[in-house]
């Protein structure tokens, strides 16, 4: 099969994608999410080839602008861009002029002056990608903003569920852990509920945000109950680097009450999928026996991450091409 078939697969009609940016799953329709997943599915095969490269984004410049440390997401975006033949620039906060007192918008204006096409941004403050998208002509992809959204992570989770279970609609999904600080949880809640999968969230009450049920999920503090009916169990990282001491008494207490080990997994369905956005805290929210066990799809998630990010880059590049032509 020639490369061109992969660049524009028949199943994927890029014309349906009209957004300049990918900021979150909350503002996407179910069809737009399905389009992203279908595009990612068609790109997955590229990473299995001996020569893992297609010319889809040749001549495009992508900037990875990371104001927060990240290995997984940053390298995943970098590989995705490279496999689509885009030029990619990595900027980490510690080396940027942000540390010299430049505002974020000043940084963006300078990047725009360098004529970049796509800005992939991660920032510790919620809303930064939205702010940048309002000011920038370049496309903006949110690679995680504070506790707000991490759309490509949720998309790779959805892709993994679809791959392993053959469907998403109707599956019972439980998200367990630190909901308060989790952008992954929020993006997954929007994505799963839009695609028809009922979501239960569970964690210590101190890590449960206010009025969570208004997001269309079931809230429970009973771990065994939360596990029992789950087809998919998503564990969240206990982000002790972000937390003040008052939220959970200790990591030991968390492990004993909410950690998933082989004993607790006995309450789960025999074909439950165990997912985790990483990096995992072995022995806190997840025991090694579970992380490395037969239910775990944690590494499949990582593999799917590249395909999802190729899809995101490809679709926003297509949309901004159209927009740019209209401007001129």
């Amino acid at each position, binding site marked *: 099969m020639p490369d061109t078939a992969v660049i524009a697969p028949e199943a994927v009609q890029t014309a349906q994608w009209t957004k300049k940016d990918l900021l979150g799953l*909350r503002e996407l329709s179910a069809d737009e999410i399905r389009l992203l997943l279908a595009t990612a599915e068609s790109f997955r095969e590229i990473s299995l080839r001996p020569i893992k490269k297609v010319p889809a984004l040749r001549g495009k410049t992508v900037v990875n602008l990371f104001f927060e440390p990240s290995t997984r997401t940053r390298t995943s975006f970098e590989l995705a861009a490279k496999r689509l033949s885009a030029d990619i620039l990595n900027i980490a906060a510690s080396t940027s002029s942000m540390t010299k007192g430049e*505002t*974020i*918008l000043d940084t963006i204006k300078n990047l725009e002056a360098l004529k970049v096409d796509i800005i992939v941004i991660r*920032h510790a*403050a*919620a*809303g*930064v990608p*939205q*702010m940048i998208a309002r000011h920038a002509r370049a496309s903006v992809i949110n690679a995680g*903003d*504070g*506790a*707000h*959204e991490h759309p490509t992570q949720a998309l790779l989770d959805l892709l993994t569920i679809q791959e392993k279970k053959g469907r998403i609609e109707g599956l019972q999904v439980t998200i367990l852990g630190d909901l308060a600080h989790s*952008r992954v949880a*929020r993006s997954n809640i929007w994505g799963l509920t839009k695609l028809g999968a009922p979501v239960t969230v569970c964690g210590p009450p101190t890590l449960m*945000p*206010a*009025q*969570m049920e*208004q*997001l269309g999920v079931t809230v429970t503090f009973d771990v065994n109950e939360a596990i029992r009916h789950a087809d998919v169990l998503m564990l969240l990282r206990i982000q002790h680097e972000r937390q003040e001491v008052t939220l959970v008494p200790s990591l030991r207490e968390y492990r004993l009450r909410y950690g998933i080990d082989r004993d607790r997994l006995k309450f789960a369905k025999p074909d439950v999928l165990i997912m985790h956005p990483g990096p995992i805290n072995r022995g806190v929210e997840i025991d090694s026996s579970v992380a490395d066990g037969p239910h775990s799809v944690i590494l499949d998630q990582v593999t799917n991450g590249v395909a999802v990010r190729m899809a995101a880059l490809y679709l926003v590049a297509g949309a901004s091409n159209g927009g740019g032509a209209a401007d001129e």
Partner: protein
Amino acid sequence: MAGERPMSKPLLIVGGTVVDPAAKRDGRFDVLIEDGLIADVHPSLKALDGVDVIDAKGKLVLPGFVDLHVHFRQPGREDKETIETGSQAAARGGFTAVCPMPNTDPVVDHGGAVEWVTHEARRVGLVDVHPIGALTKGQHGQELTDFGELFDAGCAALSDDGKPLINPLLMRRALEYSKVFGRPVIQHAEDPSLSAGGVIHEGVVSTTLGLRGIPAESEATIVARDLALVALTGGWLHVAHVSCAESVELIRHAKRQGAHVTCEVTPHHLALTHEAVEGFRTEAKVNPPLRGDDDRLALIEGLKDGTIDCIATDHAPHTDWEKDADFDTAPFGISGLETAFGVCVTTLIEAGHLSWGQLVQSLSINPSRIAGINGHGLVKGQPANLTLVDPKATWIVDPKQFVSKGTNTPFAGARLSGRVVKTIRQGTVIG
């Protein structure tokens, strides 16, 4: 603090409808102004030679608005606002008197600083400026300021606004000691340990956007404590910018018990909810935060039944570049003087919550009493401070047209009803 009276031509305002509940007037009256004072209020006055005439047909003639809570940023942050631009914004908004808060740099915590502010305000010569002095030195919450010196220098009240006074013993002493002066202690009610890191009301919007919430209880717990201290001391507490239903209920209960407590609400808390923050709109980032609709309705109810005494803007101008930051970093505050009246008419009068008499009570009569301004109202012999408004005019808020340096408003593009036509202070048209 009337200052020197300008010698100007007599002024006759004809054909307007006077609404002044303090003088028990609500109807067609002409108003004659001579030497900066109200010379006559009568159903029909003739214009004599040498008298300037203002045709107020179809307009309301109201006693000048008084704002108990503004931030003029001077000295220290003249890039955000000055006493001059703040006074211009006040005049444009229908205010004839304002009370600037002391959280400037340096803090207004001694007599000399108060005198500097009033001197600059007189030089500008637009609105009457009645400064609020700091409660504690440097607003550090450690040591009380010299209350007597501050009041002698002309302070209307004392407050550490911007910060709460947390130490309960100091708050007790402040309420006790201020009794000598018959002036209120103004509290910015917020428990900083409950609100730490918060940037938005704690609720479904904070959860959706992943922003740290500020629970209503961070305000209500301090209000409850302060009311207990009012009962203990008999002092006068004024609660700034009440934002939630719990605080309204606590104050209502305390007033029934006879406590000496007054309070204010801002136009933005009456008009908007936390949903205004959607899209990470930093222009709606304000402290206390915009809360839920139940809170908003409780504030309106409190204004209707007299639990809430007055409307104050908490005018908090900021530069564009500071507000154009991420939501966590952007400063709290709304530039409110130039939209206050329109927002109030649209939210309170048009929606049928308040009568014009009640609105005048909230924007003019009650705040003038709390600020200790003598002789406020459209009564013969009083200073001629009045505001002409067109109750029917509709307009669209364009921050580019503001005279305030602060264009930070969540009302940009909003269609408002009710517009200030003229502001007159001591017989002179100032806005």
